[in-house]
């Protein structure tokens, strides 16, 4: 037997729900005659043409064919509703029949139950029925019959195009650095640390001599893939500097562009909290050198987008800007070599550069940025 089922194009896929005059339902149930008059409460209402079936399962396909022929339906609106008890009892035969039969496997197959109340039990039954491979849905009363009807129509269309669909979930995506970039990073960071070790030692001693506290300043930053890590710098401020920040908000260079929804980055001209040594290592960008350790640890790369303090990072988790997190985090990057230090560099321009790097970053681009970084390190302005 053959049943012509309606075909739907992919363009129409949004319009699954549609009106129907009568939906034929074949009800599989043990209780004979099963109360088709589901009036208390009205689980199945008008609009359903319910056909009771409890015969031999081998005859089911013939019954379906006959039904559809008798109804002279142009498009076959027909689905199977099966009582949970019946399904449990005849599970093996039902799976055998519905997974192999040329026509039956395209019909929506919905299991219903009127007695279950325990949410945990419902959840377990959901899983069990899903795993059977033939059950398309499971309804526990009470439910709206209009919901069931729309779902049946959806499933009917879905099952027809199902064989053509290729639904591959994007799972386990993570940013992975190209091997070449990582190798370069390790070689570069190691040789820099070795060559610069006398200088690093001098700076460390100078910091210790001027003010109390540790040599390195650690802060939490969000890097590539929004991975949060300890970001190292030479300490350039007194130890309680973070707490003073709230009192200095009015001096913030980025605070003026308040009309647009741009993120509020903090950058203060001639910050009074900076120590003398701090001022020198900042002007020469030497305070950034400990990030070579971050590079060795794999938190960062030499070239990439600036890892952001968390209060800045949370403001960039929106569609337009999320891309910046999908590139490596780096000591230097497009932003630093483009026009670092210019007072008119807006937060928006900065993020645009980040996105730009995320799109076109490659090895030679990185080398170019490293070469451009050296002159940029001598900053004219105190940033």
């Amino acid at each position, binding site marked *: 037997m053959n049943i012509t089922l309606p075909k739907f194009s992919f363009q129409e*896929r*949004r319009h*699954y*729900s549609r009106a129907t005059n009568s939906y034929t339902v074949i009800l599989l149930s043990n209780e004979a005659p099963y109360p088709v008059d589901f009036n208390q409460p009205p689980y199945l209402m008008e609009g359903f043409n319910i056909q009771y079936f409890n015969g031999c399962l081998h005859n089911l396909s013939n019954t379906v064919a006959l039904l559809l022929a008798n109804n002279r339906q142009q498009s076959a609106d027909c689905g199977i509703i099966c009582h949970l008890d019946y399904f449990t009892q005849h599970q093996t035969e039902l799976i055998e029949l519905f997974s192999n039969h040329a026509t039956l496997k395209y019909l929506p197959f*919905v299991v219903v139950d009127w007695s279950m109340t325990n*949410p945990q039990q*419902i959840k377990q039954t*959901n*899983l069990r029925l*899903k*795993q059977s*491979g033939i059950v*398309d*849905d*499971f*309804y*526990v009363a009470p*439910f709206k019959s209009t*919901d*069931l009807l*729309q*779902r049946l129509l*959806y*499933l009917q269309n*879905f099952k027809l195009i*199902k064989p053509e*669909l290729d*639904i591959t*979930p*994007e*799972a*386990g*995506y*993570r*940013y992975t650095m190209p091997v070449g970039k990582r190798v370069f990073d390790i070689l570069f960071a190691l040789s820099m640390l070795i060559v610069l070790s006398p200088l690093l030692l001098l700076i460390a001693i100078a910091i210790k001599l001027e003010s109390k506290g540790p040599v390195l300043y650690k802060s939490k930053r969000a890097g590539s*893939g*929004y*991975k949060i890590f300890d970001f190292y710098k030479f300490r350039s401020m007194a130890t309680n500097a973070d707490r003073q920040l709230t009192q200095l908000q009015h001096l913030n260079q980025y605070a003026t562009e308040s009309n647009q929804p741009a993120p509020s980055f903090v950058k203060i001209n001639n910050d009074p909290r900076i120590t003398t040594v701090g001022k020198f290592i900042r002007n020469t960008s030497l305070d950034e050198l400990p990030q070579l350790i971050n590079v060795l640890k794999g938190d960062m790369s030499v070239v990439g987008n600036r890892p952001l303090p968390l209060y800045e990072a*949370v*403001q*960039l*988790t*929106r*569609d337009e*800007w*999320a*891309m910046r*997190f*999908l590139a490596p985090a780096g000591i230097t990057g497009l932003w630093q070599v483009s026009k670092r230090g210019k007072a008119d560099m807006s937060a928006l321009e900065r993020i645009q550069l980040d996105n730009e790097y995320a799109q076109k970053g490659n090895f030679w681009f990185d080398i170019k940025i490293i070469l451009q970084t050296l002159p940029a390190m001598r900053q004219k302005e105190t940033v």
Partner: protein
Amino acid sequence: MDRKQVLIVEDDNSTRKLLNCLLQKHYNVSAHKDGFDGMAWLDFGNLPDVILMDINMPQFDGFDFLTNLRQSGFYRNIPVIALSGTDRLTEINRFFDMGGTDFIKKPFDPEILISTLNRHTA
């Protein structure tokens, strides 16, 4: 302990990848570009513990998706969290009227996102 499964429906490529990065430490993640693919993935035999969806998407948007979910028996009780940049109160209200569970505004704090997901899968 079994890892919980989260279904992500988000049309923006970058945000979808970022969510993947953020959540895979805590969840089994399945991410899709629109409501149609998300719905199809479910009907291919999957039953996630929580759904995270964008509202404004081309073709099969968050509202279409939510309608289909709530009409279904399998999925009507799965918590659905909207992650959207929308400011329009009518859209947010409509989301909750249709059976949405929670709303998170973009830009979002990843820590809040994770704690919200944890709360709804506990």
